[in-house]
């Protein structure tokens, strides 16, 4: 298990290197660090001077290594628009996005497991058919459209829920702006998290159902029936534990991917998180911020994937004992 963990972490670092390389490549080709530092109004001579001073005329690899060194120390450059180090900008925006992803993940995990299991155990029942029919419609619905529909129904027509923003937030631990602690904050969270979960929930239900149905056909489940143990134990211990393994590998990655979908949901709900920040930075050509977003999100994915792999290893005795996957 130790060796397995070491391997996963090493692979994660490797992936981070690749991502940072790509990120730096973009910055190197499109970004203008001088503008980030001093704005547009400088003479060509001054620019050249600053370029020299910043080491922008050094070979690509030298600059990349410097970028890496700075990145490890938490320095990803300055945002041209916010006139602040990008890490500060991102740190300010991250809580909004992470809380949104957290709530959506709760919805996805909390609903998909019981619904998926039910649909797998009783494939012929009416409720299962409803679940499956609903899930295919869900899969076919672009996330921003779901969000628009929610706004139209609950904000415009019914006027029950707010259509944009985070509402009232409270600062906790000195840096984290949380919307989870106020009634208004929670009310603002409802629609965005439903919209964000709407893309993953049907995928998870379908995944759990098909994996579980496959497991239910297996020899060891048949053998479990032949041993005369209770159906509940067969379903929830024998079948579900084995269903979990592929669901963890695929599902863990998918939960990470929700961060990508925040770009869409945040844009619809004008949610002041990293996603809308990214789209704004694209329109403003704020290269440093864009690249840092890529690197930060990449880091989130790598961390999530590594944790998922380690959890997989803990659940699967084959990995736990032999360290091989």
């Amino acid at each position, binding site marked *: 298990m*130790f*060796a397995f963990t*070491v*391997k996963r972490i*090493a*692979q994660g670092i490797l992936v981070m290197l690749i991502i940072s390389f790509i990120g730096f490549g973009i910055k190197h080709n499109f970004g203008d660090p001088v503008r980030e530092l001093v704005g547009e109004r400088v003479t060509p001579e001054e620019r050249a001077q600053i370029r020299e001073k910043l080491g922008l005329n050094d070979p690509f690899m030298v600059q990349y290594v410097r970028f890496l060194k700075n990145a490890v120390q938490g320095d990803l450059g300055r945002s041209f628009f916010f006139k602040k180090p990008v890490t500060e900008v991102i740190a300010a925006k991250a809580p909004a996005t992470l809380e949104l992803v957290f709530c959506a993940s709760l919805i996805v995990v909390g609903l998909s497991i019981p619904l998926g299991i039910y649909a797998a155990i009783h494939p012929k029942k009416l409720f299962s058919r409803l679940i499956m029919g609903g899930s295919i419609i869900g899969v076919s619905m672009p996330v921003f459209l779901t969000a628009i529909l929610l706004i139209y129904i609950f904000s415009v027509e019914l006027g029950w829920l707010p259509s944009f923003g985070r509402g009232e937030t409270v600062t906790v631990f000195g840096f984290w702006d949380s919307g989870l602690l106020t009634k208004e904050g929670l009310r603002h969270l409802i629609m965005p998290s439903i919209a964000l979960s709407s893309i993953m929930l049907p995928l998870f239900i379908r995944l759990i159902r098909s994996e579980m149905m496959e497991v239910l056909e297996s020899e060891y489940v048949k053998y479990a029936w032949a041993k005369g143990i209770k159906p509940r134990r067969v379903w929830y211990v024998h079948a579900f534990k084995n269903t979990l393994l592929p669901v963890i590998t695929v599902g863990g990655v998918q939960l990470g991917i929700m961060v990508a979908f925040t770009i869409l949901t945040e844009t619809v709900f004008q949610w002041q998180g990293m996603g809308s920040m990214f789209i704004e930075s694209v329109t403003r050509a704020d290269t440093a911020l864009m690249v840092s977003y890529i690197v930060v999100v990449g880091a989130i994915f790598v961390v999530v994937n590594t944790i998922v792999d380690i959890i997989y290893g803990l659940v699967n005795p084959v990995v736990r004992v032999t*360290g*091989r996957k």
Partner: protein
Amino acid sequence: MTTNNPEILVSIRNVVKHFDISGGWLEQIKFDNGRITRKQSIVKAVNGISFDIKKGQTVSVVGESGCGKSTLARTVMGLYPPNSGEILYQGKRIDNLSDAKLKHYRTRMQMVFQDPYASLNPRMTVGKTLREPIRFHRPELKEGQVAEKVAEVMAKVGIDPDWQDRFPHEFSGGQRQRISIARALALDPDFIVADEPIAALDVSIQAQILNLMMDLQEKSDLTYLFISHDLSVVEHISDVVAVMYLGSLCEMAPKKQLFDNPAHPYTQALLSAIPKLGHEFSHEKLKGDIPSPINLPAGCVFHTRCKYVNDRCRSEIPAQRAGDGNTIVACHAVEEKRI
């Protein structure tokens, strides 16, 4: 060893085949006793096997799963390059030939596979499957001649030549195995390697295929290398039998000699385990399990389960020694006349 004996069709000389399954270097890290070590996993499938196959004979290789018999068959066919050792065909070395030079030998030696469901391309009609080798090796033939040849081999194996346009899934397992044999025969080879050709078939179908193979041997003067785990089948079809265990040859002898007077302790145990119709059980128990081919035991590979084991067996690998009456035995105990 002399190689130019015209009676000998195929010679296998000290063939070794290992597979590296350790993956990338990250996969090789192991954590042992508080230290991180790097360990490669190499499956030692075949470890120095030599024997000759005489023209017109059926030589069978038997052994339990994982003993390397299929790997040996594929190495002989050139599907795997051996790590060391040589394969000779009529005295000429063929294991190191380029594809172009090997092409001629491809028509001389062909192979029949185990799984009748996987050995035919499901997206090709039977006719196409059979035409492919003929067209490839004899491009000078005209369309009509190819068709004639295909019809001929189909008739030979008992498949109606009118069924050329059918796909493999329209045939039963036994019929597919016949088609597989027809594909091997399409090039009129001298030598056929059959890797468990009947293991996936039912008893009554097994008999049909075995009969077919024996008939073809008589008619076309074929030489077989027959791979099987089923000793009673081997006893029926072979002239010479070789017994393998964990990638090594234990014993090789003319059929009668081997079944009546097995010399190697493993052969003895194996033979006693064959269930015999209507006899009470009386088999020789082997202790323990087969060791992993990744961590072969030192010395004789069988020593962990052998009842005649002594210190020499644990440290020294027994050589293949010629015994009386065309036999080969690799056992210290037999050599020391302890058995």
